[in-house]
């Protein structure tokens, strides 16, 4: 029952909100997202952190094709559900300062996307997963294309076509697995039980990997991302970077590792190399970016690269690091984009060289921004450290040199983040920045919440790690069993 609420509450919210004209649409959207958060908290109180699938529901949907409405959550799903439903209210609240045209459509689309996201994270049926996957993409496409910057149409076309193309590969993979499945359904456990040879696992691996790699994105599938993040309205950027890219990460963990472990094993080395290249490459590009939004976009590619690298080490530390880092990255990246949105909505620019001295006129913003920056550069005691520490350790145990190269992120991250912070916040004010006023109202609520999350998760990450520990361990055991079985 809880899961039905979780999935359809936002959809109901979308329908209701689409009929509300004017400024109340945002309030309606916020209420619905808060309701979802309450449902999540309720579920969390009942959730047992063992490896089992809980709150499971399984309805027959299209029996002719073996499609079932089969959903459930384990620790891994729980992490991503929490991510979605904690960030949604924050993202919606962060958009309050704007008065979007057709705001009913805008907020309806956000809630619609939430349904898609939740579906992705709880689906135990490949068809359902695919539906959620696309259902999350379409609304965010419209959000970016309708309410974005001046290059939005061209940029979004690329983003949309690119990700759709990736999804089609995945669809092919799903259909292939379905055809191989003797019980003729899309059930995830049936897929897990398939015994494919190494060669075919390789093909399925690539079909899924490309879809996930584009979504995250992993180098060299990333070129849609900086343009899209820069041109999208900030709400869209937050949805994409905070939540949607985790669909790709989740997909790798849930649908790639256990279904084609041999394929993963055969290609993990290449995936790891691409991920590690991405970390260094994107960080170096971030050094000299003139637009702060684009700088954060590239920094996100670097951070996600580390997550991907950690997954493909197939170690407990790598996967547990991934779980924590999905949450941390989500919180931190929407914090960064929100700060830039606050600045650009007052000063109409995100160009680093046009800013400076904001700390003088906006001390509250300076403190909160600094805490978010520190979380992003993974200072111990902030959320960023916990994940990055585990991920770097996992990459290090895989290969000492790769660990050292991936570790460059802690130096490079400090270089570009502190450079941005200095150029934007420190120094003397200029004619433009002198007019800036400090954060207030909803801005304060959002930024304070983010800062509290950064510190609390950094000081006491145990509940998060505990939540997914058993599920991650079971998943790895499953992978290892299958690997030893094949050999």
């Amino acid at each position, binding site marked *: 029952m809880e899961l039905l609420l979780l999935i359809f509450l936002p959809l109901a919210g979308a329908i209701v909100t689409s009929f509300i004209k004017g400024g109340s649409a945002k309030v309606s959207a916020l209420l619905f997202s808060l309701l979802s958060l309450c449902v999540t908290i309720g579920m969390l109180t009942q959730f047992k952190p063992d490896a089992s699938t809980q709150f499971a529901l399984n309805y027959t*949907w299209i029996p002719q094709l073996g499609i079932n409405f089969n959903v459930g959550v384990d620790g891994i799903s729980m992490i991503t559900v929490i991510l979605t439903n904690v960030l949604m209210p924050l993202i919606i609240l962060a958009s309050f300062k704007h008065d979007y045209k057709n705001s009913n459509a805008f907020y309806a*689309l956000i809630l619609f996307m939430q349904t898609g996201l939740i579906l992705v994270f709880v689906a135990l049926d490949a068809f359902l997963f695919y539906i959620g996957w696309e259902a999350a993409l379409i609304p965010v496409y419209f959000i970016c294309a309708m309410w974005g910057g001046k290059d939005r149409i061209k940029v979004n076309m690329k983003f949309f076509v690119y990700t759709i193309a990736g999804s089609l590969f995945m669809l092919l993979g799903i259909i292939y697995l379905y055809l191989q499945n003797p019980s003729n359904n899309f059930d995830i456990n049936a897929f897990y039980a398939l015994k494919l040879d190494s060669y075919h696992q390789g093909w399925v691996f690539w079909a899924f990997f490309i879809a996930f790699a584009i979504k995250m994105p992993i180098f060299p599938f990333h070129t849609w991302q900086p343009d899209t993040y820069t041109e999208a309205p900030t709400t869209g950027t937050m949805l994409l970077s905070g939540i949607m890219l985790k669909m790709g990460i989740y997909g790798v963990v849930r649908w790639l590792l256990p279904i084609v472990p041999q394929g993963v094993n055969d290609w993990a080395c290449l995936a790891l190399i691409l991920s590690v290249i991405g970390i260094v490459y994107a960080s*170096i590009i971030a050094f000299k970016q003139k637009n702060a939004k684009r700088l954060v976009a590239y920094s996100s590619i670097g951070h996600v690269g580390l997550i991907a690298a950690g997954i493909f080490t197939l170690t407990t*530390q790598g996967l547990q690091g991934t779980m924590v880092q999905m949450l941390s990255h989500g919180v931190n990246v929407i914090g960064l984009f929100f700060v830039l949105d606050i600045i650009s909505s007052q000063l109409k620019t995100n160009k680093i060289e046009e800013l400076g001295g904001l700390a003088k006129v906006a001390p509250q913003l300076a403190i909160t921004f600094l805490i978010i920056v520190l979380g992003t550069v993974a200072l111990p005691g902030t959320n960023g450290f916990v994940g990055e520490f585990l991920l770097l350790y996992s990459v290090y145990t895989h290969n000492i040199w790769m660990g050292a190269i991936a570790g460059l992120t802690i130096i490079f991250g400090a270089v570009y983040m502190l450079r941005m912070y200095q150029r934007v916040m420190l120094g003397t004010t200029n004619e433009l920045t002198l007019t800036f006023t400090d954060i207030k109202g909803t801005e304060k609520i959002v930024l304070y919440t983010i800062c509290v999350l950064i510190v609390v998760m950094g000081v006491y990450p*145990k509940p998060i790690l505990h939540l997914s520990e058993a599920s991650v361990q079971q998943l790895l055991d499953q992978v290892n069993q299958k690997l030893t079985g094949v050999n």
Partner: protein
Amino acid sequence: MINSLLWLVPLLPLLGFVINGLGRNTLGKSLIGLVGSGVILASFVLSLLMFFELGGATQKQFNVDLFDWISAGNLHVPLSFLYDPLSAIMLLIITGVGFLIHIYSIGYMHEDAGFGKFFAYLNLFIFFMLVLVLGSNYIVMFIGWEGVGLCSYLLIGFWYTNSSYASAAKKAFVMNRIGDLGFLLGVFLIFTTFGSIEFAQVFPKAAAMMPGAGTLTLITILLFIGACGKSAQLPLFTWLPDAMAGPTPVSALIHAATMVTAGIYMIARSSVLFELAPTTQDIIAVVGTATALIAAIIALTQTDIKKVLAYSTVSQLGYMFLGLGVGAYTGSFFHVLTHAFFKALLFLGAGSVIHAMHHEQDMRHMGGLKGKLKTTFATMMIGTIAIAGLPPFSGFFSKDEILAHAFQENKVLWAIGLLTAFLTAFYMFRMMFLTFFGKYRNTHYAEDKVHESPSTMTFPLIVLAILAAIGGAINIPHVFGGNAWLEHWLQGANIKQHALTLDHTTEYALMGVSVLAAVVALIFAYTKYVKNAHVPVSDETERSALAKISYNKFYLDEIYDTIIRKPLDALSKFFYRVIDKKLVDGLVNGFGWTATEGSKGLRLLQSGNVGFYIFMMVLGIIALLSYTYFFIA
């Protein structure tokens, strides 16, 4: 008491940070100062009580577990503290010197608009520094390690509207991060080698390993890289002189007495590992000696009073690393202690001068201040004598212990160490003479406006001067009939140092040579700067080649700029403009072009009306659901 109250020692400063941080704009200055210094005093009293308890106890190691911090698979990082003779002394230094500097700051920062913020940062620093020395494993140490780096960043850039100060802060953070990567990799290797990162687990297991084992060498080199960042050694020391952009109490506390000695603390703590890695020890000794010499040479020509002291700090830290490299762990730690007294004293004294001269830091515009600033002059003179290594002040004992060990291990290192000691005495007396002797040279600030600092500032100077004078007493060597108390005390923390096998005649001779070197340096400096009243030339004047190299800091910043920063910037642009935009994205667009050309016909379906799209989506869902309901269920 140790088990039950240890956690309070770091918690009190954290509490001070929270109170002062939240009340920075609302609380009065006297209250902020009271809270800020009060919490440190309370920590100091606690540390003192625990120190006496430890002295009387037979057990020398106390482990206090707080909670399980990070845990994944076989990797466990408990948040736990270790209180033993080594951390006991560190606590006393941090809270004791820290308290004095807090008191001093009440006077020094009184006019500053960021008074509350300053005390909040200072409290936070003490908190992280205490975590650093109390951690019972390498990762808790790392929390403190990076935490003090953050506070250093915040305090160097305290006057952030000055963009060169902000840049200095960033430089310090980034250079520390280079070291931190080494440290982190070292910790990873420790974990994969020993299956734990707890000191209590790692050291016994390491002791069973073959001396010179490759793994141990690699671990210790990686840890040493971390120490090079934090403790400003070659090639990572250039951030420390720039760090003088911070308010002077910060330079005294963070960039002289405590944070920068963290690297020495860490290596002394891990002495079991380093003892088994002779290659690393050689590297440490050479790097330390080179740093000591180069920094001393640079200090010879500097004209900014704080820069002289900054390079002096780098040089003294190099000394400590030389000591570590030749196996004088207690000797180095002894120097950490005495250096904390006399260098904090010298920085605070310099701050008093700068305060009196209304923010003037250039010694060319000082002179003749000894009559005006009597307490400052007298106390700084004691500090100078101590650092110059003249008996019986503290620096003499600690420096000579390091030099004696260096002599025993390697005569060349000893000779360079001696030369450095000579240079140190020279540039320190040069600083004193230029500042306090001769004629008053400042034309912008009238001489009669120069005044001695308030008692909040002179009181810490006096206390530190006493400590700098008599601090050597805690480790008087056997050759003088002492009982080397510190050495015995630290054995309780498993810190062993190589035995000194020199006979007493040699020891006396070595001391004689180094005292002679200091005296000769003093005479040189006196002749040049007092008798001949020499004043360093202005920046426009051409210098001799050697002086130019020294004055321009061996051009290290320029060299790093050319070989690291500029190539990376160029690479950044190349990656962005060529690889990313042209190559990778070009390929993608190539695919895209093919697709769009082929799909022109399908475009007609798109009306551009969002309402229509949503309508179609909802319709689709309803259709699917009703299909389920009517035809299947």
